[in-house]
């Protein structure tokens, strides 16, 4: 029930953001649409029997995003330097980083954060470990130091 309500709230908020109009007709249609999509999404959840438990501390999530953006900028500058170097000096490697202590949503956030930072791409999640392909050694070292996963663990609900 809580899940349905928060989904409805998110969808209604998205409608307002997209529409930006406040005519009665459009607002009514928005409520109907959000409710309909909500129903369909819950029906999908019921049929496949899985849904992500979205339960994070919003304030910390915001702080995580800020940190992630900073990391993305740094990583971008590093990779761009490699791209523009007259002779390529790449040292690609594949390794696994542990993702224990994270919920499924946390693992997915972790994998996608890894991919979002240029220089590292997550290629598989397996046995609570994430396989990573790294472009250059500094990027690999950065990730293996585990700062990202520590910050993600702090986001976990308990």
């Amino acid at each position, binding site marked *: 029930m809580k899940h349905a309500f928060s989904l409805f709230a998110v969808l209604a908020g998205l409608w307002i953001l997209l529409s930006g109009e406040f005519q009665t007709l459009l607002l009514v249609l928005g409520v109907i649409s959000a409710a309909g999509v909500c129903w369909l999404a819950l029906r999908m959840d019921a049929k496949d029997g899985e849904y992500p438990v979205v339960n994070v501390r919003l304030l910390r999530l915001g702080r995580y995003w800020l940190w992630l953006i900073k990391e993305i900028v740094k990583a971008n500058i590093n990779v761009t330097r490699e*791209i523009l170097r007259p002779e*390529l000096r*790449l040292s*690609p490697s*594949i390794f696994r980083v542990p993702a224990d202590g994270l919920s499924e949503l946390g693992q997915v956030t972790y994998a*996608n954060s890894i*991919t*979002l930072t240029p220089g590292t791409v997550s*290629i598989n999640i397996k046995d609570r470990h994430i396989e990573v*392909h790294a472009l250059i050694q500094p990027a690999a070292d950065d990730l293996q130091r585990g700062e990202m996963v520590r910050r993600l663990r702090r986001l976990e609900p308990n």
Partner: protein
Amino acid sequence: MQLLLDAISWICLLSGGFFVVAGGIGLLRFPDFFTRLHAASVTDTLGTGLILLGLMLQSGFSQASVKLILILVFLFFSSPTAAHALAKAALHGKLVPFVKR
């Protein structure tokens, strides 16, 4: 004030353009598929982010800015997912990453 905003916005657009082109060059220069994934991600993250940020500064607090933010957020969800799916597909297709020991 307006001038300052404009200046920042131009800087964002220009540096965004620079990163977009850099990503494109990397896509062409890098030796194998997995390394090219990294180059493409330069375009997808900082290049796109800066250009859209520059456009946001141009339109100020308006409907267009909201849509630009939404585009950015959705891209940040979908583009790493696509990259991940692609890397998986390549591994599945027995493409061996070029790894330096």
